[in-house]
């Protein structure tokens, strides 16, 4: 089904999207409608134009592919499925996501992956092709965040205060991260080959969406950041 979005409000648009029996839906002329495909499962939604805030919020298994930039809070609290953005994304992408994958060709704004979490086989993954703003992986509690730094000019791969409050999950930055200051409750070191092998499948998927050579991308230094989770509350409260 093809839906012309320009004249529709977010509510009508989402109702049509949910009500149709079609699995494949193409939206054209999107102009800032919020919550697109929120909470849906089993659909493949292609978006042309600019999707509004909270694209794919609470997503429960659908695949969303957008060919423009995306605004704030992409994949807010998503549970399963995939969001593919052929552009840049705004702030707070993957906010509290607890499953599924987000692939971004370009850059991310502030607070990408804030409070991502994981549980048993639910391990969310976010791959950002470019660079990110400040507070990347803030309060990260689980899941995998990968930043490739393939675009975005001379700026550092991540801006200020990455991993503030991180207490779970893994964060890979394709950089030696010289000059980047991490908080004291996380470990950061150059990732070992077997650790990179773990994320190879995600890089391959990134390249399948946007092009590029996984070998070339992986043939670089990655910094791996993990929380010092031996006793995460020790520094906050009393020794016990």
């Amino acid at each position: 089904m093809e839906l012309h979005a320009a004249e529709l409000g977010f509510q009508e648009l989402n109702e049509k999207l949910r009500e149709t029996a079609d699995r494949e839906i193409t939206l054209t002329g999107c102009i800032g409608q919020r919550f697109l495909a929120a909470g849906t499962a089993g659909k493949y939604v292609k978006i042309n134009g600019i999707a509004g805030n909270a694209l794919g919020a609470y997503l429960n298994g659908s695949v969303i592919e957008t060919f423009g930039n995306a605004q704030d809070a992409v994949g807010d609290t998503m549970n399963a499925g995939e969001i593919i953005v052929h552009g840049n994304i705004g702030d707070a992408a993957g906010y509290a996501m607890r499953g599924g994958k987000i692939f971004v060709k370009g850059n991310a704004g502030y607070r990408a992956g804030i409070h991502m979490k994981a549980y048993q086989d639910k391990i969310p993954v976010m791959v950002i092709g470019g660079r990110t703003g400040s507070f990347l992986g803030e309060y990260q509690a689980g899941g995998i965040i990968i930043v490739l730094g393939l675009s975005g000019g001379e700026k550092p791969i991540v801006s200020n205060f990455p991993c503030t409050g991180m207490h779970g999950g893994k964060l890979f930055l394709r950089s030696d991260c010289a000059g980047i200051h991490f908080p004291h409750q996380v470990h950061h070191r150059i990732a070992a080959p077997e650790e990179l092998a773990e994320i190879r499948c995600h890089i391959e998927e990134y390249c399948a969406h946007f092009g590029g050579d996984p070998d070339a991308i992986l043939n670089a230094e990655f910094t791996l950041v993990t929380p010092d989770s031996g006793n995460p509350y020790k520094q906050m409260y009393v020794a016990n």
Partner: protein
Amino acid sequence: MIPLEGQVRIPSGCAVSAMISRDGRRMNGEQIIQSMVPMHDRSNGLGGGFAAYGIYPEYKDFYALHIFFNDKSCQNECMTLLKEYFEIVQDEHIKVRKIPQITDEPIIRRVFVSPMQSVLRHLQIDEKELVVRTVNRINAQLDGSYVFSCGKNMGAFKAVGFPEDVGRYYRLEEYEAYCWTAHGRYPTNTPGWWGGAHPFCMLDYSIVHNGEISSYDANRRFIEMYGYKCTLQTDTEVITYIADYLLRRQGLTLEETAAVIAAPFWSTIDAKPEAEKQMYTYLRNVFPSLLVTGPFSIILGFEGGLMALNDRLKLRSMVIGEQDDMVYIASEEAAIRVMAPDIRNIWSPAGGEPVIVRVKEGAF
């Protein structure tokens, strides 16, 4: 009786938008109104407004006062006071289009004034200072009169309503400006009323703001020591007075002003080269009470340009688009796409990073 700050609480939102031609080309208000449409749900109909620069070229030497009056007696009282200090060059209705979406309108007047030289000599102040003092006095002391715009060759237009309705109400398609800013309000903490809609103006400075100022009372206490009066029952107006105080009275640059109100963290300052470190340290030490904390994205308009600024943590969104001589700023990219569908250069500034756009010298 409108409830005051603290007596009512309303949850949050807001939208901002702006467009400016670096070549000084004047454009009518149609596009800026349209830019607010995709962000409709960021507002709740309790306030919308616009600021326009370059709209009164035939009166550009006079201060254009836009004033709300509750009734005719307020108007008479205010005009009597104005005539003590200013020559009244022109006194007229601001033309509006009656639409069902905009109701309970006050009397809305536009008064072009010129300060009396004898008054300036007597008070030993310059004309801008006289305008600021008079406007503060009217807004603080004359019940039922609010001067909501008082710059030269610019003006604010605001009301209770959704911004796209407010734009049609004020017939903004009939005005031509080289720079437009816009605001859709979703009041937090304070009531929606005509004077509380954005922009907030002082002289040619105008502020539209999305956010909530956690430091409001600290800022207010400081700025009120310098003669400003916070009378409009909302936090945003204090930023306008801070801008006037730092830019006009202290003579700071826009960059320095941004470094005061969205000062970097000490740890960020420590990592900077020595000269910058000294400047940021100096500004934080001298104006600690003018640090504005809490989430904000603001657009400060002024004669010949504008400055967009986020709080240092970037807790509100802001997108910039550039195409040819035009610069667009909005809370959401969708708003920019309405004004410039095929724009390619779109980016977001970092928290505390001012984006300053100036119109070519001589083009405004």
